[in-house]
């Protein structure tokens, strides 16, 4: 947990230090992060509010892409600061895209199967887990 968030914290603190004009020039990725955060929020909102499963899938894609954006941004940042393992973020992104594609394929299959069985793809109609 800590290790996952350390770069982010460092970054945040770094950007703060940047802003405090310490002298060392570092790329400013805060805009990327803000956009990613907004994307994530939009995705979450979509998941929580929409009834159509396909739209929920699309919202999940937004969430994933928010994460991708973060990965790319941090990767770039680390590259600039001369970090050796900086390419890992881009590799992750590719992975996530692949997994998302697979997930979409399977998910759509499930949706079709579901529709055949229950003639609906609205999640509030599929409340089999209730009690």
């Amino acid at each position: 947990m800590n290790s996952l968030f350390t770069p982010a914290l460092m970054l945040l603190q770094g950007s703060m230090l940047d802003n405090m004009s310490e002298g060392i020039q570092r790329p400013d990725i805060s805009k990327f992060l803000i956009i990613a955060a907004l994307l994530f929020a939009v995705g979450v909102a979509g998941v929580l509010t929409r009834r159509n499963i396909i739209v929920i899938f699309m919202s999940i894609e937004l969430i994933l892409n928010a994460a991708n954006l973060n990965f790319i941004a941090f990767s770039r940042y680390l590259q600039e600061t001369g970090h050796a393992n900086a390419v890992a973020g881009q590799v992750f992104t590719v992975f996530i895209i692949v997994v998302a594609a697979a997930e979409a394929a399977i998910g759509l299959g499930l949706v079709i199967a579901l529709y055949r069985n229950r003639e609906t793809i609205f999640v509030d109609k599929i409340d089999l887990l209730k009690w």
Partner: protein
Amino acid sequence: MHRYIWLVPLLPLLGAAVNGLLGRRFRFPERVVGAIGVGSVALAFLISLAAVISYGSQVWPRPYVTSEDGAFSYTWIPGGAVELTQGEAERAQAGGAAAAHGQGAVLDVEWSYQLDALSSIFMLIITGVGLCIFVFATGYMHGDRGFYRFFAYLGLFMFSMLVLVMGSNFMMMFVGWEGVGLCSYLLIGYYFDRKEAGDASRKAFITNRIGDFGFALAVFAVIATFGTTQYTAVFEQARSFPVETVMGPVTWGIMSWIALGLFVGACGKSAQIPLYVWLPDAMAGPTPVSALIHAATMVTAGLYMVTRCNVIFQHSQAMMTVVAVVGALTALFAATIGITQNDIKKVLAYSTVSQLGFMFLACGVGAFVIGIFHVMTHAFFKALMFLGAGSVIHAMHHEQDMRRMGGLKKYMPKTYWTFFAGWLAICGIIPFSGFWSKDEILWNAASTEYVSGGWLLWGIATVAATCTAFYMTRLMALTFWGKERFLEVRAGGQADEAHAQAYADGEATPHTAVTPSVGDRPHHGPEESVGAAHALESAAVGEPEGVDAHGHDIHDRHDPGDPAGHGHHPHGSVLPHESPRSMWMPLAALAVLATVGGFVGISPAFAGGAHVGGRLNIVNWLDPIIWNPATGQFGKHSPAQTSALAAHDKQTAGHEAVKQEGSHAAPLPTRTDDEHGTAGAGHAPAGGEHAAAALPYGGETRFNLAHSVQHVLGDSHTAAEWFFIVVSLLVAGFGIWLGFLFYVWRPHLPGVWAQRLGPLYRASFNKYRVDELYGAVFTRRTMDAARAVYAADSKVIDGAVNGAAWLTRQLSRFTGATDRLVVDGAVNGVAGFVKLLMSPLLRAAQTGLTANYALVMILGLVAGVGIFFGPEIWAILRSAIGDMFAFAL
């Protein structure tokens, strides 16, 4: 070679195991089963022969026990210390080793084999005669479905019988004893799908249980008295125990009790009055079984046991008398029944009972050696006659009724001539084997010093011998001579006695028997059947299913594809024929033995007044195992024992004095040493070197037939013996003459005399109704008792049990109610309360809507992030806000 005798019982056991366990699974063909069975017994016979020769030349007269040189030994029952509770006074009186043994006896029953004079003879008889019978059975049982089973049982029997005679202690004898009883049961009931075979096997088994009970008690008494079961140790102690004479201070003591128990066992196994009833019924088994078990070997186990324990029997004059009287009565009783039976095997069965009676008579009058001699000769000629009868039955299409035979001499000459030898042997015609042993029995009965009234025993035995000659001649005449009646009377194998009786009473035609044949049921090819046309007859009479057809059914099962199936083709037109070689070869071998086998015990009168031949003479051979009451030692003549006697004199001096106190040391007037030097144990040695010779039990001799005859004939012992030989031959000749008169020369006489002696004839024909008597007195009462016990059991015991069960059920009903109402109520109440309280809350959480769950997840995420990073995020936000404000400002 005698070190390897442990192989002798093992080989038949292995053969039986292979045949019995693998024979069915792998469907051994008859050739393989027969080869395994015959091969194992042949090997056992060869080993026995080599062992006995080796033993006789190296160890005899000492007994050889395999544990003494470690050839074969195994502590079978490590019993530990035993307390001797019986025979304390006798032990004290005996003194010496016996008294010392009283303390600290240890009962360790070992499994080891003993080879001595007695067991060697039995080994040779069992394996030798057994070999002949195994070979015969391969022919006789040909085509039987249970071929492998038959040979497995036979092999198991050989094993048990060999353990019985070769064991070195009473426990092993008991194992063998029960083993042969089991095998007898299995083999009598071999045709288990027939009721009378099953009934006969159960009868044999149950009757033997009565005897075995006595035997077991005797073994317990032996343990309680001597603290060991090993023969050598028991007899060494018993040797010096005081003798219990009828006139003496102790008439009936511990030795008599032991002897009584043993004799009850012997009565059961050897078919003596009153336990003989099983043996005639045992003829329901296959004929080779009758020959091996119920004539040659198993039924002589009682003789073996009595002779083995002769020291115990000789210690009790009362029991010697009992043995002699039972033997003599059985001999006469069974012989008179044998006269009127029509089933060829029944005649032989009663003849066996009668001959066993002769043997017991010999033992009872002190001539144990002669008893064993008769066992041997009887094994030869009776096995021969049974196998001959089997050959006849085989040829006659399992017809056993002699009235439907006749004239078979022409058709089966080999069987006829071998049977002829057996006939002369059992009648006691010189020089056939039976003559030598039977004559010796009669002579010993007449001259006995062991029991009083020997002349009466002799008279009974002589009458029995006459009957023997008569009924055997009758059997020969009806079977082999005369008209070929099977051409007139229809054959069909219903020679059962119920049928025969009904037929004789004129109430039935030949095919209205109510039960199937008692006889056995071997396989016959269609071309082997005999008798008049039968299919027409059976169709006309409409005989009940399974009465006549039992043999045919079996046959059909054998050859399902045979178009000329037995059940459908008419009997007749095909004549009986000689049996195959596998059947007449054993007959020939036994015929030779039956002819010359008696020369090993040739009468002293023929051989210059002594038992010639050294240890090759059976009388001398067996001498070392026979206790001599006059000296208190075993045997009389071996130098080793004579020297041992000298060394032992001091030890037993007191005992000798006690014994002779009442005897007055009367010199023995019968056979003196010169004339009869090596007589059996029945004759105490007299003459120069044995000054202490005395009557076995002291006291005055009453009337003694032999002595009187000797006196009349001028005090010549040899003359007296010749007199009895002539008498014995005369009565045999008279019996044969009578037989010829009745059944050859004047065939109408039997009917006439049956009329004239009506009651006697019917009594004999109905076997004196002993079976019915036992049925009424014992069997019926036992059944009544069983029924009463059953009633008590079902009413009282079951009632109590059921009552208890009812009570338990009521109680459980109460506790069940309590449990349901109180305990479950409490638990359910609490649960219901909790449910009532919590369910709306928890239920509401489970909306089933995906969005709700996702929301909770997001909230959880936010909460988690807030908890962990809340302050940092807050700080950043604050500074950012501050910056923004700074910008703005």
